[in-house]
Every structure is written in C-alpha cells, then in structure tokens.
C-alpha cells in the first residue's frame, strides 16, 4: 500500500507542493497588509530623533536627585554692532564667575565665548536672551566647567534677532550639593510596587483556596465514577435551590438574633465562648457516637444535636464577626504602627459577616440535596421498575422545570425580557417535558453518568472565565468596588481560580490510580478517598503551581493598573502618556526587578517542595 502511494506521478506532487507554497506566501503577504508593515516612517529624521531621545530617557531612570545650586551670568551683546563700534572683548576679570564674550556681533556670526571661575564640574545650558522677552533663553548648547572653572563655547549668534536694544548671552551652571535623595517618582514607584506584590499575593491566596475544591470537580478520573440513578439525580437538583433558599433564611434569622443580642464586647465574648463550647461538645458526641446499629431514638437525638449545633455555630459566628468589628474599631486608634492588624480584624470580620449568608446557604443547599439524593437512592433500590418509572418521570419533570425556570430568571435579570411567558412558562414547560422524556427513555434503575456532566459543565465554565483577560475583568470589578487595588485583587483572583483549577485538575488526573483503588477497597467513601488517596499525592505539584501562579500574578498586576485596578501599571501608563519616559523607566525597572526576583524565588521554592 505504502509503496503504491510513493509511486504517484511526481509531477502531481510538485504541483501540489507548489500550490501549498503559493498559499503560504499569500498568507504571509496578507499578514503584511493587515499589520501595515511600512519602513518609510522609520526613515524620517524626526522619528529617529524622537526614538533616540526616548531610548536615552528609558536608559536613564529617574531615581535619585541632588539639591542643586545655580550660578548664572549674563554678558550684554548688541546685534548687529551699532554704527562706528567694533566688537571688543571685555578685560579678563578676576574674582567671581563671569563670561568673556564680544560686546557686539554680526547676525549669524559665530563668536567664541569663554567662562571663568565657575565651580569645577558644574554644568548647564548656554543661550541667547533676546531683548523682546528677557525671560526667554534660546538654548544653544550645554557647557561644563573644567577643573579650573573654565569653559569655551563657540556661540552661534542668531540671524533673526536684530535689535537696537541690549541683548544678552547667558549661562546657567548648576552643581549638585549634599547627598543624593530619592525623587518623588521613585518613592511613588516603591509604594506602588509593594502594592503590586501584595495584590498578587492576595489574589493567589484567594485563587488557591477556591480552586482547590473546584479542581476535584474538573478531574475526569474522579468524576467518571460518580453515577447515580435518575431518581436521586432529580431530587439532588431539586434539593439545591430549596436548600439554598432555606439556608439563606436561616442565616438571616441567626443574624437578626445575634444583632438583637449584640450589646457590647463582653457579652459578645461570652456568647462566642459558650456557644463555641457547646457546639464543640455536641459535634463531638454526635459524630463520635456514630454507630449503624443505634436505635431510632438515638439516631433522632443525634440528628437533632447536629442540627442544633449547626444553628448555634452560625449564631456564634455572627457574634464573632460583630465582636471582631467592635474590637477592630476599638483597637484602630491605639495600635500605632500595628494599626494594620486592627484594620485586618475589622475588615475580615466584615467580610465574614457579609459572605456568611452565602456560605450557609450553599452548605445547607449541599446538605439538603445530598439528603434528598440519598432518599432517591433508597427509593430507587426498593421500588420495582414500573412505579419507579412514573416517580422518575414526575421528579425529573419537576427538577428540569425548576432548573429551566431558574435559568430563565437569570437570563431575565441580564437581558430584562420582562415577559413571564418567555421567562418562566415556556422554559418551565420545556424542562418538564425534557425531564419526563429522559425518565421514559432511560431504564429506571440504570445509573446516569452525572459526574461526567458536572465535569463538562465545570470545565466549560473554567475555560470561559480563563479566556477573559484579568485586565478586562478588572474593568468590571472597578465598577463593582471602585478604582484601586481591591478591584485588581478580585480580578486577578477570579482569573487565578479558573487557571489554577485547570492546572490542579490536570494534576489530579495524573495521580497514580493504585493507592486510590486501595483506599476505596477499604470501604472508604468518596470524601475519605480524596482526603487519604488523592490529596497526599497532589500536594507537591499544587504548591509548585501556586508559586508559579503567584509569579504570573505579579507580572499581570503590573499591567492591571491600566484599567484602574491598582498597582504600578497606573503610574506607568500615566508617565508614558505624559511622555515622561525617565519616570516611566523607573517603573519598568521596578517591574523587571520584582519579576526577576519572583522568578528566582519561586523556582527555588518549587525545587524544595518536589
């Protein structure tokens, strides 16, 4: 077969290769057209001058400056020489710094100007002061005094400044005095680069914490085994929104209770300590006495204890947050240098207070859905296929109708359709029909690969989020929380979640399956298998990816300021727009140093963990 292929007429081959070659050339040619490649601009002398100036400024970052002393001297000159007067040189004087220049000259003539007794090493512009505007110095060049305080300059007299009035040749020499100090630009750069590094750090921290659990959902090898029959899947779907709603209500209730009680620091401390203690003992008793053969009464008691402990936990946490807010406010003026710690206590309590309702809602949602899906599992095992199919159809219809109505509500919020028929009725009906169809098209007892569905949804969301650049996310967050580094942290954090979750999940996919199998064989459930079989295997790559991500975040946060997201980018763009290249160069240098050292540190740390 292969021989035959090789024996095709070579003419055809050459023609084919020729066509490919022509296509490739055409592609490149079109790329030239689109990217507007053109050297004529670059040949202009003005461009060359601008370019040189910019490069020199960039090579000369503005970091240090000196206190300067100016020495100025003006020598009167008539242009052209008044009638009957010939140019003469004044006597070379002694004493203070002065210029020796002709008293008059012809238009456009070049005369020799000498300076004496200036401070050695001082430097500055020399120029012509026209009679029309004594403030103006038409700079003709730069002079530097030698070791004896002397300089010579061939001064081109202007050819368009004829006047009967006296005009001047003026020199302004400057010298540095004292020790150098940092420019305002340098201190601003320092401040912003510190902000940049911490922005990157916080974004990485947030990203790592959130992407850790998500990475398991996006790992194929873990999700492929997650299967459940339609009964428990439908109940699971119904459980989430119901649980989230109930959890939100509960959390709000606890918050109100806690705010009624909030009467001062001591009362808060007391309720946190007592509540925490009770929670600890209840949990300990309820979890440690877990026993499958317990009587119904004991089981009910245990469940009650767990529920009560959870409620109390939420309540105590609310008390803890209000305690933190009070303590932070009280400590803020007293800590002096360590006021940032008080601010941390205040802000983190505030954050906890704000997100508590969300966390509780999600946890209750998860609990309710897992409880319902367990009930679904039992039902599925007990019932015979006939009635089961009817129940499946009912439940799946409800679940999908609910899911589609929620999706419709989300779309309505975004696009403001505001038509109940399109937003709720049609999607609800379509979902219901889809659920019923699914129930009748599958065998009632088969397990559906729900894990793979979750896997694909997670992957899709992660890819979508990852494809939006952090700089662009920053625009949205700037609108959300205002201009500043906080918006940058949120934007970078979100991007980090998406990309770390993907990197992490690929690590989970490449772990050794053997230990997993062994742990599973001991009767461990899924959670235990992950904690004992998966996590020990993925810790080193997780650490190394986190370091790598911090490195990337530092680099990204240097430019995120462009959109107002805080960090050094704001300063950089501002200076570039003001054509202040020396200042911009300082920021570029700072970025380069930070990125290079992050690179070095992260590679060193990664070596240690693997």
């Amino acid at each position: 077969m292969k021989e035959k292929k090789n024996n095709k007429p070579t003419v055809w081959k050459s023609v084919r290769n020729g066509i490919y070659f022509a296509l490739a050339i055409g592609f490149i040619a079109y790329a030239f057209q689109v990217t507007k490649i053109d050297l004529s601009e670059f040949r202009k002398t003005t461009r060359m001058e601008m370019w040189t100036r910019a490069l020199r400024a960039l090579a000369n970052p503005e970091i240090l400056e000196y206190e300067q002393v100016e020495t100025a001297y003006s020598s009167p000159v008539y242009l052209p020489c008044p009638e009957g007067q010939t140019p003469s040189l004044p006597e070379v004087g002694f004493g203070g710094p002065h210029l020796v220049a002709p008293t008059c000259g012809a238009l456009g003539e070049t005369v020799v100007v000498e300076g004496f007794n200036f401070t050695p090493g001082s430097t500055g512009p020399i120029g012509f002061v026209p009679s029309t505007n004594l403030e103006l110095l038409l700079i003709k060049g730069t002079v530097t005094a030698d070791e004896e305080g002397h300089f010579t300059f061939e001064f081109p007299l202007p050819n368009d400044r004829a006047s009967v009035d006296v005009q001047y040749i003026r020199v302004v020499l400057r010298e540095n005095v004292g020790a150098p100090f940092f420019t305002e630009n340098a201190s601003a750069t320092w401040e912003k680069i510190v902000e940049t590094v911490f922005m990157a750090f916080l974004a990485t921290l947030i990203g790592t914490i959130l992407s850790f659990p998500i990475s398991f959902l996006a790992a194929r090898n873990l999700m492929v085994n997650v299967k459940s029959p339609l009964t428990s899947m439908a109940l699971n779907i119904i459980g989430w929104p119901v649980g989230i709603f109930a959890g939100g209500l509960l959390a709000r209730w606890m918050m109100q209770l806690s705010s009624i009680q909030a009467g001062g620091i001591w009362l808060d401390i007391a309720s946190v300590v007592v509540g925490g203690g009770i929670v600890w003992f209840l949990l300990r008793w309820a979890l440690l006495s877990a026993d499958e053969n317990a009587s119904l009464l004991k089981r009910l008691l245990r469940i009650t204890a767990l529920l009560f402990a959870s409620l109390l936990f939420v309540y105590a946490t609310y008390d803890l947050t209000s305690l933190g807010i009070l303590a932070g406010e009280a400590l803020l003026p007293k800590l002096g240098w360590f006021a940032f710690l008080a601010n941390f206590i205040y802000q983190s309590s505030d954050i906890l207070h704000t997100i508590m309702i969300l966390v509780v809602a999600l946890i209750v949602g998860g609990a309710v859905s897992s409880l319902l899906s367990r009930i679904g599992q039992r039902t599925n095992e007990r019932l015979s296929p006939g009635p089961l199919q009817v129940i499946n159809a009912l439940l799946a219809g409800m679940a999908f109708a609910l899911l589609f109505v929620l999706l419709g509500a989300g779309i309505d919020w975004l696009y403001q359709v505001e038509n109940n028929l399109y937003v709720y009725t049609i999607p609800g009906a379509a979902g219901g029909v889809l659920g019923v169809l699914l129930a009748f098209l599958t065998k009632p007892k088969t397990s559906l690969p729900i894990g793979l569905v979750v896997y694909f949804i997670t992957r899709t969301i992660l890819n979508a989020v990852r494809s939006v650049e952090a700089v662009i996310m920053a625009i949205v967050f700037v609108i959300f929380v205002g201009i500043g580094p906080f918006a940058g942290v949120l934007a970078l954090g979100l991007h980090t979640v998406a990309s770390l979750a993907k990197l992490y999940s690929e690590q989970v996919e490449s772990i050794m399956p053997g230990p997993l199998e062994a742990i599973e064989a001991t009767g461990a459930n899924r959670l235990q298998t992950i904690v004992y079989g998966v996590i020990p295997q993925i810790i080193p790559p997780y650490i190394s990816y986190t370091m790598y991500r911090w490195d990337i975040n530092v680099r990204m946060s240097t430019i995120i300021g462009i959109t107002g997201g805080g960090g050094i980018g704001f300063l950089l763009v501002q200076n570039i727009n003001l054509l202040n290249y020396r200042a911009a160069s300082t920021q570029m240098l700072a970025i380069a140093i930070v990125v290079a050292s992050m690179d070095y540190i992260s590679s060193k740390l990664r070596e240690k963990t693997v």
Partner: protein
Amino acid sequence: MLHIKNLTKVYEGSVQALTDVSFEVPKGQFLAVIGLSGSGKSTLLRCINRLIEPTSGQVIWNGIDVTAASPEELRRIRRKIGMVFQNFNLVHRSKVMTNVLAGRLGYNSPAWSLINRFSREDKEKAMKQLTRVGIEDKGGYRADELSGGQQQRVGIARAMIQDPDMILADEPVASLDPVLAHSIMRYLEQINKEDGVTVLCSLHFLDIVHKYANRVVALNEGRVVFEGLPREIDDKKFKEIYGRDAERVG
C-alpha cells in the same frame, strides 16, 4: 462462604475478561487463583469487592448479594474484605502509620477523616498490626522510604486492621524476590490459619501454590479450566492451564 455464580465481565470495546465463572470458597480456605497474565485473575478478584463492576452474574458473600448492594451497603461489605496488591498501592508521600490507619476509614465517620483524625484505639490497632508484620519501628517513615518487602508488609497490615473476614491478594509477591515472596506468603498463611480469615490469592509460581494453598482455581482466557487440589495439577492439566508450549519451571 463466598459463592461466585456465572460471573461475566466484558470491558468496553467488547474485551471478554471473564466468561461464566462459578465456584465456591468455604470460610477459612486458602484459595489460589492461577493462570497466565491476562487470563482474568485481577478482574475476578476486583469483581468480588466491585472495584470493577461485573457485567453479569452474582457474587454472594455470607448470604449477601454483593453485586446488588447499594453504595452504602457496598462500603460496609468492603470494610470486611481486606485487599493486598501486586504494586502494594501505598500512598507514597504519607507515613506508614497513616497508610495502615487508612484501613479503618470504612469504620470511621467521614467528618473526622476530613481533619485527619483517628481514635486512640485505631492507633493501637495499627501499632499491633505493624508489630505483627515485624516493622513496628517504621511507623513514622514515609511509605516510599521502605523497601519493596517492607511496603508489602504495610499493605498486609492495612488489610488486617480492617478486621477482615476475607483477604483478596492480587499477585502479592509478583514484584518481590523469592526469599521475600516466601516471607510475605507466610504472613498470609499465618493470618489464614490463626485468624481463620479466608484468603483468595492470585499467584504465578506453582511451587508457592503447592506450599500455601488448600485449593486451586485456574483461569484461561476468562474461563475456569481447573478446580481442585494443588497436587492434582499434573502435566496434562498444566498444559491446559498455561497452553501447549508452556514448560514447568517450579
């Protein structure tokens, strides 16, 4: 008493791994499963605790239908069946102690496992099992710091801490040299004789089969081709099990 009825496993892509396998294992027996590589030994052992889901057939253990068990029931069944693997399957980066304690996971509440907590009784049991296999001083080592023979002993300790009624050993000595192989086999024998634990062990070498097994089931291309006492394997049976070109070496 383990009862395997018409067990069949077809992998995706219609690879027939097991065809209509049936046999019984009385309690306390040391059963060797032999056959060429790829004859379905590993699949058979994994179908018993459903690490691999059988396509059809039944596994009945102490009167419970394992193949029909719900996930909850399956976990309760699995924790009474210890498993030992050819490649030891220890978690390399975890300590030996943690690897052994992992055998108790089926008995413990998942909430405690989240924060890596085991009760004192569990730790004492783990120490007892490590002492039994003669590596009581290695508890604090990382699992991958141990030699192959020591790692397999950790594997046995992990299976034994489950208080199993049965042990499934999937070629437990195939990655070890002959001397170590016998020491590992002696631990299995001890467990079988002293604790009355049923052992199902897939093996390569016939001399090991002769020395330790009460009974043999031989598989060839997923079918049972022999069932009986080890000494009943004569040259004719041998050729049936291992193919016409096989030579006896041990």
